[in-house]
């Protein structure tokens, strides 16, 4: 809400010092978002609390201030309107309008007489309402009497206009200005119809299917959702109740007779209409938060008073249709409980005095809630809040409850920390990507058609297409990260994330999807960034496998990298010859590999060859950590090297596993210590050197024994894998 401190001072006393005034406003819950201490009148913008509709006016703000300071609110002076016969027929056909009032005002203009057409009068009189248009006829006679009076200006005073402008409202038309000013002062929105544009009784009702109207400042008629709360005459919709008037009945320069509407509308009805039309006005803001139903007539009276100063006069009495009476809500107030709750020691009288400042009235066992607070005061705690505000939140006592013992990280938190520590140590940066993506991403990944990842949970109302689908995999965002960095000529990427993916599942407890926590990491470029000391080897799938092994060691979990699992969903987006499964106790929990060149091209990545892994994080958390300690031998093992030449496609791991399985019990370990890629008979082959570590703890193993064991292993490998293209390299 925009206003100036000078304008607010017209309604309550404030500290003279701008900074002190600002602190006071902040402290009573009228948060100052902007202030210009050197601007005219000291302009401020307040952020109002969403539940306090009563703050949306100057007297409301003043009331809040005086609840703290104890001063008095300076209300504008006006003469109450006289309620009697309605100046125009009113029909209220819905309980969503609790109070509806109409007041007729006229601006005498000797040169001009406005006479309702016979058809208008007939139409109105034919209505089944029990009110008549007789007053209108009378008024025409009054007009004639005004001939002798001095020509009225029809406009608000300079001071009133200045006040409007200080609060960010541009003067438009005297009648509109008066309604705006009264709303600004008292928080009762009103609306003025040009009386001469109304055909028949004014009806408050719900809109019918297909009904259209032309809201103010719009150029085309809009269709209203059926059941919208509207004000209508016999021919057209005059206003969307509490939101905005319509062009067809608006006041303009030629207007001399207005029907002033002041009413109390249902907050939800106004809110629905405002949202449906995307029209948000000061009026809708006020009604949506619940208006003061007792303020209808004072609001109309203030408008009439302002317009009277401008030469307009009220004709006849004000008609009111009301189904509302003050419920007189009493909220239990136990002073002792309040003292305990706030930790204060003020006596009962002091507490009641504070409540009275906010307009609460002391009754038996509680306080009676003033009408302007019926929307937000229901519980004793609501009253404690008033007391706390009155004292000042900073002035009530402060203390910590007794604390028995601190807490510990959960296992899930610890797992993440251990994993992150390994990855950070290997040069990875943690990133955070969105929880959703656009529809183009699955296409780039080839996850379409009958692909297991083609189905997504979809957002129903995303205002940005990039948020159409909830992420069901993490690979896309990871590759996009490499692409984004590549566009900045940054190909050295090492990134990881603990993220969550969403998987459509009608059998899930919520009937829609399951959520999975995923750890992923992606790397491109080299193992470590190039330095003056030379280029490191590329960050390829083998390197990434090493990273996974480090994670396995750090977590003390049997996490291994094994043959690719054809059913793993993201496998199709990885290089078919450079991918593997990540297994935990033999169960597939993730995948690792180089991103498929086709996918790399689809993301328009030019240079990088990203490698990626992902692991289902929840499986790591569920598995108990265990790694028994093995004492290192006191005597160094005896080493024997064996070199085998392998046809391309035969995995070194197969040979190593066979060696390990076939050796004697005292074969401790088999390591691959060298790889030599070369040609043999015109075909590409690889020669791998396997180092056998024979335990010789007792020192009694003879060279012959070890030589025999080695010969036996050569025989086994030749026998079992010879046909696959494995032979000893001599």
């Amino acid at each position: 809400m925009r206003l100036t401190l000078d304008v607010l001072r017209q309604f309550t006393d404030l500290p003279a010092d701008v900074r002190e005034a600002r602190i006071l406003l902040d402290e009573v819950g009228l948060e100052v978002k902007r202030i210009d201490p050197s601007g005219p009148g000291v302009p401020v913008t307040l952020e109002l609390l969403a539940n306090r509709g009563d703050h949306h006016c100057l007297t409301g703000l003043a009331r809040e201030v005086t609840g703290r300071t104890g001063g008095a609110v300076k209300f504008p002076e006006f003469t109450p309107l006289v309620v009697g016969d309605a100046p125009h027929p009113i029909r209220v056909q819905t309980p969503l309008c609790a109070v509806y009032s109409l007041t007729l005002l006229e601006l005498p203009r000797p040169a001009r007489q406005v006479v309702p057409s016979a058809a208008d009068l007939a139409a109105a009189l034919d209505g089944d309402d029990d009110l008549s248009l007789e007053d209108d006829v009378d008024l025409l006679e009054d007009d004639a009497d005004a001939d002798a009076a001095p020509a009225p200006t029809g406009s608000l005073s300079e001071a009133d206009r200045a006040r409007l402008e200080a609060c960010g409202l541009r003067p438009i038309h005297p009648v509109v200005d008066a309604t705006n000013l009264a709303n600004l002062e008292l928080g009762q929105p009103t609306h003025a119809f040009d009386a001469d544009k109304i055909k028949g009784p004014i009806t408050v009702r719900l809109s019918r299917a297909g009904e259209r109207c032309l809201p103010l400042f719009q150029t085309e008629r809009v269709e209203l959702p059926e059941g919208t709360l509207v004000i209508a005459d016999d021919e057209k919709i005059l206003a969307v109740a509490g939101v905005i008037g319509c062009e067809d009945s608006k006041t303009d320069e030629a207007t001399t007779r207005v029907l002033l509407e002041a009413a109390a509308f249902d907050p939800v009805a106004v809110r629905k209409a405002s949202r449906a039309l995307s029209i948000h006005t000061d009026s809708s803001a006020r009604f949506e938060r619940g208006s003061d139903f007792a303020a209808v007539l004072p609001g109309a009276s203030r408008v009439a008073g302002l317009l009277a100063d401008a030469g307009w006069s009220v004709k006849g009495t004000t008609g009111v249709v009301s189904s509302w009476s003050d419920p007189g809500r009493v909220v239990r107030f136990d002073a002792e409980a309040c003292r305990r709750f706030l930790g204060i020691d003020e006596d009962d009288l002091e507490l009641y005095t504070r409540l009275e400042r906010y307009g609460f009235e002391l009754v038996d066992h509680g306080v009676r809630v003033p009408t302007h607070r019926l929307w937000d005061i229901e519980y004793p705690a609501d009253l404690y809040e008033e007391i706390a505000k009155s004292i000042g939140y900073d002035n009530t006592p402060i203390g910590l409850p007794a604390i028995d013992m601190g807490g510990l990280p959960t296992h899930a938190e610890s797992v993440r920390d251990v994993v992150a520590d390994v990855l950070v140590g290997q040069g990875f940066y943690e990133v955070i990507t969105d929880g959703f993506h656009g529809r183009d991403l699955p296409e780039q990944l080839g996850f379409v058609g009958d692909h297991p990842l083609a189905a997504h949970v979809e957002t129903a109302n995303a205002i940005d297409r990039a948020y159409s689908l909830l992420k069901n995999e993490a690979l896309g965002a990871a590759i996009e990260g490499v692409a984004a960095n590549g566009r900045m000529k940054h190909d050295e990427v090492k990134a990881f994330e603990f993220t969550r993916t969403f998987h459509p599942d009608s059998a899930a407890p919520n009937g829609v999807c399951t959520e999975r926590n995923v750890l992923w990491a992606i790397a491109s470029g080299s193992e470590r960034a190039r330095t003056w000391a030379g280029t490191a080897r590329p960050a390829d799938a083998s390197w990434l496998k090493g990273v996974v092994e480090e994670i396995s060691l750090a977590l003390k979990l049997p996490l291994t990298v094994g043959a690719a699992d054809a059913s793993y969903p993201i496998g199709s987006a990885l290089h078919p010859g450079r991918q593997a499964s990540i297994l935990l106790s033999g169960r597939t929990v993730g995948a690792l590999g180089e991103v498929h060149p086709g996918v790399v091209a689809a993301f328009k990545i030019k240079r990088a060859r990203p490698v990626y892994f992902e692991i289902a994080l929840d499986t790591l958390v569920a598995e108990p950590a265990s790694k028994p300690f093995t004492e290192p031998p006191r005597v160094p093992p005896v080493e024997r090297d064996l070199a085998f030449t392998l046809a391309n496609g035969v995995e070194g791991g197969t040979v190593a596993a066979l060696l390990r399985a076939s050796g004697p019990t005292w074969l401790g370990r088999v390591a691959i210590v060298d790889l030599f890629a070369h040609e043999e008979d015109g075909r590409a082959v690889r020669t791998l050197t396997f180092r056998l570590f024979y335990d010789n703890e007792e020192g009694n193993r003879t060279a012959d024994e070890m030589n025999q064991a080695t010969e036996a292993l050569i025989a086994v490998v030749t026998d079992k894998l010879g046909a696959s293209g494995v032979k000893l390299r001599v």
Partner: protein
Amino acid sequence: MSKPDVEAMLASFRADLAAAADLTALDEVRRAHAGKASPLKGALKGLKALSAEDKPVFAAVVNAAQEAVEAELASAKLTLEAAELERRLLSEWSDLTLPGVATPRGARHPVTQVEARCMEVLRRLGFTLVDGPEVEHPFYNFDALNIPEHHPARDMQDTFWVSGGLLLRSHTTTVQARVLEERAKDLKAGKDVLPIRVASMGRVYRNEAVDATHLAMFHQFEGIWIDKGLTFAHLKGTLAFVARALFGETRRVRFKPKFYPYTEPSVGVDVSCGVCDGAGCEACHGAGWVTILGAGMVHPKVFAQFGYDPDQVSGIAFGLGTTRMAAQTTGITKIRSLYEPDLRTLSSLHRGL
């Protein structure tokens, strides 16, 4: 036999020694003049042929010469070793103005660093982290938290709806609602569930047009503490502890009225601006204060919703935007960049450009 010419031997040794330029050459001199085949060793063997009175005289002369040779060799060795070391040190000069070449570490994300810090602080108060779903039933996101349909508070959080009438949680308070519901079952079963001290954190979603300062997804952190006899004073004490632990012991803390549907009274917590220390500057829009936390006493309607008696238990709830806090602590002004995978930003935060 003639008497050995020890003088000549020594002269020859000294000439060779003077010519030895390095330790290899010195070894050669040692072999030639002190080795088994050296003239001095030969002279020693030749003593047997001398007469009884000449023998002791010449033995003394040869021994003295041998000792002289050994001493001079040792001395020359020291000299040459020192010279060699000198040469080596000179040749081994390393340009340490060049950058270090250790494998550079990466870094945790600024938001997770903030989360870790928040948990560290809350654990001291006995809080435990609890996780919850991001795709939520509106009951836990709104209704259970005293935000009925068509309440203006729903406007404060433009919601992403997904199929099945579910939504993407717009705040982590959903986890609190779930915890209250779950513990209420134990409470009804007569178990002692108090105190409840849980924290929740993670991604939340708002259906907003994204720009440099507005995000459709960001991170929040929340805590809830339910027990008998918790008061507004305890709320303030807890918040002041958390605020100072997170932002620094020297920061001043102030409390101001706020509105959150699920707390009553609701409180906003400000700390004195870290840039101007309260004097008012551009960073704090002249206020001298920066808002960091939203909090309050758990609303009686929230208690009633899950079957707790608000006359018997009370609660403290608070939350903060970890994304915003990460921006505040790193100095990033465009918070969107925290969620972009631009490693230049992340590495620059960690190790500078």
